[in-house]
Structures are given as structure tokens and as C-alpha cells.
């Protein structure tokens, strides 16, 4: 497993923005009220914030709004931004990269390096590792890590395993090069493409280009219908994989980075579904008070889950206190990351924004 340890950077601020539009799971027409209640109890998702997917609100818009407010609150001049990384599977276009579109729309200088990383639920930890590593040598001074997805777009309305789970969000993390910073970011990764069929949007890429058959609603059993242009998830395989490997990676992290669980303030779990998260919480042996949730309100927002959790549940704490946090993500790919993030207060976190 690849591990990184990043120093010389400071996490200066974090912000998030979600669509104002809410979809209540209890109103889902495809199930009886009893079935919905059972589903809500198991997944923990009561409602989700979802954009209407007509191009009016893209992930980049959510991230841009969050970033502009954050920079204003931080007193950052946009002319100082030299690194912008956009992490998402819901890019504005297949090409060009959304990060570069954002550079222009936000008036960031052309001297900035901007690019995209296409990842889902592991996006924040991979993005943090990439940006942190790039900045640690001092080659870049002020970076914006934008992570989000409007992946409710990919859920078939007749696939309850996806449409009642996926929510939309955009987040931004402002990172500065600072050799005097005591912040520490330690991350261990796994990449396992043997799981590629378990979370996949089959058609529309180069492997299976869009054709007439892509649009046909197919019966997938258990009352689920979707086209090959909808996201397909084999939930039991994601559960089996995540609950098996996250504890293993955590055990390796513990010994490699001398992590004492009693000294950990919070365990931030990717908000995949509550059943999976609770299984992990118990396996990793953390009490409920150290494991915040916001899945009930936002659902599974893919790469945004960890930063969104920090914005909604740790807004004051990130500012007022030193924090020793663990984060664990299992995402499409499979791409897995477990991180220890140590911060030292003073982190600016504006209230959650809506669009």
C-alpha cells in the first residue's frame, strides 16, 4: 500500500455549497411507505440536495461559489492562486478540463496550474495527497482543492439503490505552503480495478461509446430498471470490499504513523450509507460521539462527503481547536484511502452555502 506523509502545508479554510432543491426520500413513488421507511432506516438517508440536471447547476458552480466566499473570508487575493485541482466525475465537459474553465471564470491568473482528477468517493483524500505533495516543496504557494459531484444525475429514477442515496455537493479546501505549519497529513491508498464493474457507468466512454442501445431501460431484477447511461452499483460488493479493507489499511496506518485511537478526536467516514459506516465504526472501535454523520440530510455526495462533513459538523471546532482526525473513504474504482489529518485551529469555515 502506498503511503504519504505531508508537511510544510497549512489547511487554511474549507467551504461547501449544495443545491437548494431538496428531494425527500419519503416522497419516492416507486416504493410503499413501509418499504421507504425501512430503506431510510438502513441507509440513513432522509433527504438529499439535488440539482436539476439541465446544465443550470454543475459541480463546478457549487465549487466556485464556495471558493469565492472562502477566499473572501480568508482575505486571499485570487491573483495569488497558483494551483487549482478539480476532483469530480461530473465535469462540465468531456473536454476541456473543468479546472481550467474555473481558472478563467474565477479570474485566477493564467500562471496557475489547473487540472482535473476523475475520481468519486475517494476524491478528497486523493486530491489532498496530490495537492499536498505538490505544495510541500514550496513549488506552489496557494492552492484550491475543489471536490464534488452532482452525481444524482447518474441515478436512474427507477433504481432505488441509487436515486434514494445520491446527493449533490461542491466543496473547496484552501491550502497554503507554510514550512512553519504543524499541520500533518498522512494518507495510505489502495487502487483495485478488480472492482471496476461494481460501481460503473457503462456507456459513454471510449470502451462502450454511446449507441441506440445505451438509452434502453433494462430490467435488472429486484424492481430496478436503468439504462447503460445510468450509474450501476453492486452494493453488496462495495460493502464487502470496504468493510474488509478499510480496517486493514487503518491497522497499517496505526503502526506506520503511531496513531493512538484515544488521541483521535474524530473519525470521518465517507457517507456511503449508514449501515456500512456503522459497521466500520464498530470494526475500527470508535464511539458514536467521535463519528459525525450528515448522510441524513445530504445523502452520499461522493468525493464531497468528507469535506462536507467537516463544514457542517466541525465548523466551529476546526476554527477553535487543534484537531487530530482520521478519514476513511472507499470509492468507485475501487479507490480507497485512509488518512490522518492533524490541524491546529484558525481554520476559516463559512456557513454551508446553497444554490
Amino acid at each position, binding site marked *: 500500500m502506498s503511503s504519504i506523509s505531508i508537511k510544510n502545508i497549512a489547511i487554511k479554510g474549507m467551504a461547501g455549497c449544495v443545491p437548494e432543491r431538496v428531494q425527500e426520500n419519503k416522497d419516492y413513488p416507486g416504493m410503499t411507505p413501509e418499504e421507504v421507511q425501512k430503506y431510510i432506516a438502513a441507509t440513513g438517508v432522509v433527504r438529499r440536495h439535488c440539482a436539476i440536471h439541465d446544465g443550470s447547476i454543475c459541480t463546478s458552480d457549487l465549487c466556485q461559489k464556495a471558493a469565492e466566499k472562502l477566499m473572501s473570508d480568508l482575505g486571499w487575493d485570487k491573483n495569488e492562486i497558483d494551483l487549482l485541482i478539480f476532483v469530480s466525475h461530473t465535469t462540465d465537459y468531456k473536454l476541456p478540463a473543468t479546472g481550467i474553465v474555473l481558472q478563467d471564470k474565477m479570474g485566477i491568473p493564467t500562471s496557475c496550474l489547473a487540472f482535473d482528477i476523475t475520481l468519486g468517493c475517494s476524491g478528497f483524500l486523493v486530491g489532498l495527497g496530490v495537492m499536498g505533495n505538490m505544495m510541500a516543496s514550496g513549488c506552489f504557494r496557494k492552492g484550491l482543492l475543489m471536490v464534488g459531484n452532482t452525481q444524482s444525475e447518474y441515478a436512474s429514477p427507477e433504481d432505488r439503490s441509487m436515486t434514494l442515496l445520491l446527493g449533490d455537493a461542491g466543496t473547496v479546501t484552501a491550502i497554503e505552503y507554510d514550512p512553519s505549519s504543524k499541520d500533518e497529513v498522512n494518507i495510505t491508498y489502495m487502487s483495485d480495478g478488480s472492482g471496476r464493474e461494481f460501481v460503473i457507468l457503462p456507456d459513454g466512454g471510449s470502451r462502450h461509446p454511446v449507441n441506440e442501445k445505451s438509452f434502453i431501460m433494462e430490467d435488472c431484477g429486484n424492481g430496478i430498471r436503468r439504462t447503460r447511461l445510468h450509474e450501476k452499483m453492486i452494493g453488496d460488493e462495495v460493502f464487502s470490499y470496504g468493510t474488509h479493507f478499510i480496517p486493514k489499511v487503518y491497522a497499517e496506518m496505526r503502526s506506520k504513523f503511531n496513531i493512538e485511537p484515544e488521541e483521535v478526536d474524530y473519525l470521518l467516514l465517507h457517507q456511503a450509507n449508514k*449501515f456500512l459506516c456503522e459497521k466500520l465504526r464498530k470494526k475500527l472501535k470508535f464511539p458514536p460521539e467521535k463519528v459525525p454523520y450528515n448522510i441524513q440530510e445530504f445523502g452520499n455526495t461522493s468525493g464531497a462527503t468528507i469535506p462536507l462533513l467537516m463544514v457542517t459538523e466541525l465548523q466551529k471546532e476546526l476554527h477553535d481547536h487543534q484537531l487530530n482526525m482520521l478519514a476513511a473513504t472507499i470509492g468507485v474504482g475501487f479507490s480507497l484511502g485512509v488518512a490522518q489529518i492533524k490541524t491546529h485551529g484558525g481554520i476559516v469555515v463559512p456557513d454551508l452555502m446553497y444554490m
Partner: protein
Amino acid sequence: MTLDEFVKAFAAEFDDTPEEAFKPETNYKELDEWGSLVALSIISMVDDEMDKRLTGADLRSCSSIEELFNLVEAK
């Protein structure tokens, strides 16, 4: 864990199906209550009780609780 204990532990993950419905030869996928959420709790039970990783493919490939037990034991 014995087969009988496994059958009991399997049955315990179901809320609405009586324990008598569960025997080694029961094809669990034909039970009314069988579905994606129960499948997750079976994967979780096997991990807790037997410290083994059960996959979705394993559950789909077996046609009885006994067959599943044998598959897990062999892991």
C-alpha cells in the same frame, strides 16, 4: 462455528421471517424477505462471527444456507 449455529445466526438477521423457515437446505434467495439490505447484514454477520470476507458474488452463487456455509468455511 457449526452448520446449525450458522443457520441460527443467518436466521437472526431476518426481521419478519420465522426461525423455523431456516434450515440448511433453505434457498435463502427465495425467501420473501431476501433483498439487498438483508444481504449486507449477512456479509456483516459472516465477518463478525467467522472473521471471513463474504462477497456479493458468493451470495449469488449459492442456493442453500449449507452451500454458503461450506463456501465460507473453505475460505
